[in-house]
């Protein structure tokens, strides 16, 4: 049985300077209440690993606007002009990476691999500073695993064993991030007694604690 806690309680262990992965594609499948609690807590100098920085007034975007992020590893910042401004003004260190490469790096960490060879970005600036290798006459970039101290992820339904199922396009990077952080906190739309074992997308083994969105302990 996994601990069920409030969003506020869940993010308490995240200290200044921590590395945090956050699931979500734009504002879809994103643990918004966990992010709100992290904004409220005002933890600074975070390294954030995420698909995108959403919009300035939404979820991941709020952490940017509130200047809590020192380093950002992401694939797209086009929907949040404040990220671009902070980058251009040298306030935030942004590492832009191809989406597939970021996903594979996170997955490699969770799967205990020492890295993968990606074809993506060969012949572009993505190659800069990275080792390349030729395999059967084709050039690849060696990409190292990446993990985090915390992963904040979203789940549509989560059972008390930590098993997670999803509805719609909400899975995105939540699945790989669940495997690659020391502490994994899932925000559930709903905590249920049981999920059909055939419909579980993230096995409970990867989850540390659960926050229920609508019935958050602090807000009820």
């Amino acid at each position, binding site marked *: 049985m996994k601990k069920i806690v409030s969003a506020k309680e869940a993010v308490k262990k995240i200290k200044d300077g921590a590395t945090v992965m956050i699931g979500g594609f*734009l504002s879809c499948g994103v643990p918004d209440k966990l992010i709100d609690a992290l904004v409220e807590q005002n933890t600074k100098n975070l390294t954030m690993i995420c698909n995108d920085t959403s919009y300035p007034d939404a979820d991941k975007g709020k952490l940017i606007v509130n200047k809590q992020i020192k380093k950002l590893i992401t694939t797209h910042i*086009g929907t949040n002009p404040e990220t671009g401004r902070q980058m251009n003004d040298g306030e935030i260190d942004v590492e*832009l990476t191809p*989406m597939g490469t970021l996903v594979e790096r996170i997955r490699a960490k969770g799967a205990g691999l020492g890295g993968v060879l990606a074809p*993506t970005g060969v012949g572009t600036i*993505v190659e800069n500073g990275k080792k390349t290798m030729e395999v059967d006459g084709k050039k690849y970039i060696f990409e190292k695993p990446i993990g985090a101290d915390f992963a904040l992820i979203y789940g549509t339904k989560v059972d008390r064993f930590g098993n997670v199922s999803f509805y*719609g*396009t909400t899975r*995105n990077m*939540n699945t790989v991030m669940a495997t690659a952080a020391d502490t994994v906190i899932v925000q559930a739309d709903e905590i249920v007694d049981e999920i059909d074992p055939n419909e579980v997308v993230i096995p409970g083994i990867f989850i540390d604690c659960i926050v229920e969105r609508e019935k958050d302990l602090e807000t009820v």
Partner: protein
Amino acid sequence: MELTLLSKEKTREIIARRAAKEFKSGDVVTLGIGLPTAVANYIPEDQHVIFQSENGLLGIGKNTTGDNMDKRIINAGGICVEAKKGACFYDAATALSMMRGGHIDATVLGALQVDEEGSIASWMIPNKFVPGMGGAMDLVIGSKRVIVAMEHTNKGEVKIVKKCTLPLTAYREVDLIITERCVFDVTPDGLVLTEINPMFSMDDIKESVSADFIISDNLKYMDID
């Protein structure tokens, strides 16, 4: 010199309609954000083309509105869409494996520059416009066919160049370039002009393209109606 014979709307329509002819039934296609998204509007009703997106949906349908909107089902542009019959949802690892692994039949995307070797720049203008590459690099390297669908020039600035000066999205991966003025095949011999919009002269094309190109023996007029 900037030619302004076509409205913005008509320009986009010509490009999207032409790009839509590149598919056959059963093809799985990924459309970039912006102009390429409009390509879906010109696929014949009876042609079963399947649209895929990197946020986890195979079988993208129409945009949803009002009560049909569900914020948990979006396309890669963040717009709420319908999941068609036969659709499925999956995570980013699966989505990007589809793309990078060669399982997508064609991708249509916009560009800032394309060059005569088929290299494409689409994700940044240093210090000015840096949205990031998202899944574009994976798509371009992995799709069986890469189609650039873009306005011919950027307010008069040449976009089809000898060699891209902007940071690349991918080196030598483009197969076809479609603009409102013409169509180029990218071949091992270089660009081959295969179609021209009858509203433009060969000189118009030559003046608005800095890449070298060959004129096809079978040069045709583009359908612009």
